[in-house]
């Protein structure tokens, strides 16, 4: 057997074992735990039940899910509105500066998002940078109450997740065949029409990818809601974390986690479907 084939087998084998041990097995344990009963001195008691799932139907937890989806959807929308022109400008910039512009998008990644969230606190504080600036410019008399609001949470999420929107959009816009845009213009389409009927459909895989990359992590980033929202909103992430770390209710935490995984799985399925359709359209 050649060295190459051996390397291939070892590489694939290692990854397979890794995934089996550290992704599949733990997830399987979570699924199993979700059907067991909470115990007092042990974490789980081997009494099978679907209780945990029945409890998920409580309006309280539906509210928690709804809240998470709402915040995440708002974040996604804002990221798209800000990210699209942003990506467009980078993609249309002089090819010599493009790598540097992209580098600027990526640089914030080098700092932990936890640290960046703390930095947002310093900016949004009552005596923070923003209020001080607005006051010294004479625009406001009293400091604005910015921190510990839903607005602060969304601002934090948008700030953290924006690069995940910009990068796939950039990739899609950069690949765009500009001859098609020129053709549209030659055929008399106005700017808005060209944008709506040509550019958007052609970059839709990038739009969908960006939205997924922002929306899905947005559901889980509970620490942003804790720090910037003052821990007042319970998101799915908080709910799961608390079942394990304070309520000692592993079955319920597991059930919430499985539900979230299923919902996310469905969304990724929708994405793949949409991407396939978009590709089919382009080929036609």
């Amino acid at each position: 057997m050649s060295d190459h084939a051996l390397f291939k087998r070892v590489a694939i084998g290692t990854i397979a074992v890794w995934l089996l041990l550290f992704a599949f097995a733990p997830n399987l344990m979570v699924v199993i735990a979700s059907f067991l009963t909470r115990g007092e001195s042990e974490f789980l008691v081997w009494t099978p039940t679907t209780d945990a799932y029945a409890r998920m139907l409580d309006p309280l937890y539906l509210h928690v899910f709804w809240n998470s989806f709402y915040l995440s959807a708002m974040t996604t929308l804002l990221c798209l509105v800000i990210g699209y022109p942003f990506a467009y400008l980078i993609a249309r910039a002089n090819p010599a500066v493009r790598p540097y512009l992209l580098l600027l998008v990526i640089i914030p990644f080098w700092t932990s998002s936890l640290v960046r969230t703390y930095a947002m606190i310093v900016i949004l504080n009552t005596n923070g940078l923003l209020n001080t600036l607005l006051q010294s410019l004479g625009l406001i008399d009293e400091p604005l109450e910015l921190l510990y609001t839903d607005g602060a949470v969304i601002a934090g999420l948008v700030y953290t997740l924006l690069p995940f929107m910009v990068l796939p959009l950039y990739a899609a816009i950069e690949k765009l065949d500009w001859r098609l845009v020129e053709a549209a213009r030659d055929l008399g389409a106005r700017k808005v029409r060209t944008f709506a009927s040509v550019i958007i459909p052609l970059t839709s895989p990038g739009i969908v990818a960006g939205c997924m990359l922002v929306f899905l992590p947005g559901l889980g980033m509970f620490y942003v809601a804790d720090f910037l929202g003052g821990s007042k909103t319970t998101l799915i992430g908080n709910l799961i974390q608390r079942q394990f770390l304070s309520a000692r209710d592993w079955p319920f935490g597991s059930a919430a986690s499985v539900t979230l995984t299923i919902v996310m799985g469905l969304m990724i399925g929708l994405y793949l479907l949409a991407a396939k359709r978009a590709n089919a359209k382009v080929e036609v």
Partner: protein
Amino acid sequence: MNRLPTLARLGALLLALLSSLACAPARAADERTLVLYNWAEYMPRPVLKQFTKETGIKVRYSTYDNNEAMFAKLKAVEASGGYDLVVPSSYYVTRMRAAGMLRPLDKDRLPNLKNLDPRLLDKPYDPGNAYSVPYLWGASGIAVDSARIDPATVTSWADLWKPEYRGRLMLLDDLREVFGIALKLDGRSINSRDPDEIRAAYEKLLELRPNVKVFNAESPKSVLLSGEVRIGQIYNGEAWMAEQANPKIRFVIPKEGPLLWVDNLVIPKSARHVEEAHAFIDFVLRPEIAKQIAEEVGYTTPNLAARALLAKKVRDSRTAYPSDADLERGEFQTDVGDALPLYEQYWSKLKAAR
């Protein structure tokens, strides 16, 4: 060569690797060591160094930031015996004792126990301190920014409900602490397991909810110092640090009494170095060591001899060292067992309420 055996061989290799890792602590057990598992930022390094220097016992130190995480880890290594000394909060002492996870202390080996404040010994979470020795403790009360609120108007937990504090209040992000306030005001135990009492407490807290601007348990002092809130529930240790940074901050112990917690040194039943663990407990109970710990960590020491060594400003402060009367009225947290998921459910509801 087909595919499956390669996978199987790789798997075997990985397992062998993992089991050799798992054996590593067992081999190290032969020399005199102590495996200490403590809260993060809860033990000054020089204390550990001095202990090793004096006794020749090596200390292996790891940390956690959550009682539940500590409990889970301890459970996981119960059979092989990983840790010799851990530092659970009072209500976890109850729980671990009930689960048979703790080893009774040999008090003949702990002559320095005499230094401890008798007010903090023999509490309901561990009668007679058969299993636990207080390490650091604290009380939660109310901090007030006297520049904006007259501290004389705040004397009771009920004052937090005043309508003028709408959107200006901080509560600790800890369900036991927050429910403790309402239970105490109702004249119940903060350790109630009665569903009706817990529901009544929840309903009371629902009325408090519009006042809450932020829940924070990590660093309540920074929220207060940033001017974001003007009144809030806070641990006395945090309040003491806030007072040092801003003299306008005042700490009030409500007349219904504070909620009390104690972190305790305990030896797990599975410990392998029991003698070393006792030696370490007694070392930490020495006045000058306990003083060093209290000064470095910033919380209140239960060690009277150590307190006498502290700067006068610190030891006479009612914030850092609540009075006898305060302690008398306070209540210590114990485990609530089966009632915990119910608390958690109401806690989620409370947070979701607008």
